[in-house]
């Protein structure tokens, strides 16, 4: 359990850095969705199942769709 926690947190930090460094905004959104999914598993480990449920629905689902909707109206690549 301890090592699972460690792996998840390291993956979370790697995702957070990768979101900031990616130039392609669509890939950044996909990485951000995986960040939200790992965060939801971490909330479950921290015994907050209702927050985990909301994070999986809002963070991984709706936010991704909203961001893709915004990108389809603007540019794809970061300058």
């Amino acid at each position, binding site marked *: 359990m301890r090592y699972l926690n460690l792996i998840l947190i390291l993956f979370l930090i790697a995702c957070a850095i990768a979101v900031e460094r990616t130039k392609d905004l669509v890939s950044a959104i996909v990485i951000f969705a995986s960040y939200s999914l790992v965060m939801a598993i971490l909330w479950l480990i921290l015994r907050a199942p*209702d927050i985990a*449920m909301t994070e999986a629905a809002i963070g991984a*689902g*709706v936010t991704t*769709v*909203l961001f893709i*909707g915004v990108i389809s109206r603007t540019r794809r690549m970061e300058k």
Partner: protein
Amino acid sequence: MDDLIVKTVTKLIIPFIQLYGIFVILHGHLSPGGGFAGGAIIGASFILLTLAFGIEYTKSILSAKVTERVEIGGVIWYIFIGLIGIAISGVFLGNRVAGFPMGTFGSVISGGMISLITIGIGLKVASTMISLFHHIIEED
């Protein structure tokens, strides 16, 4: 998006998503989740419908007028339940002191007005999510 696989899977899966959302809302006082999580799940099901069938189809089912009315109705319902508490016991959202029936512990009908409030929050969150998405995606 005009894809047969996406449309068929969407038709199959949407009733289950909405049933799960209603389950989460109605068990808000017993299990994890509640008004916000359940409303978000129902809103996500309508967003999926918009992505698969286009905005015109979703608006023919659920027009902007209906989502606005439901949004306002959810808030008014919440305040109305709170004012019942003030009228009877003098406390906003008073539950047991205002005489709401408590029911048996652990069953769905229990906890006084908490499940009524959760239904209002669920309607509000679901309709807000739908109208927000439609406003962003809409061509002007």
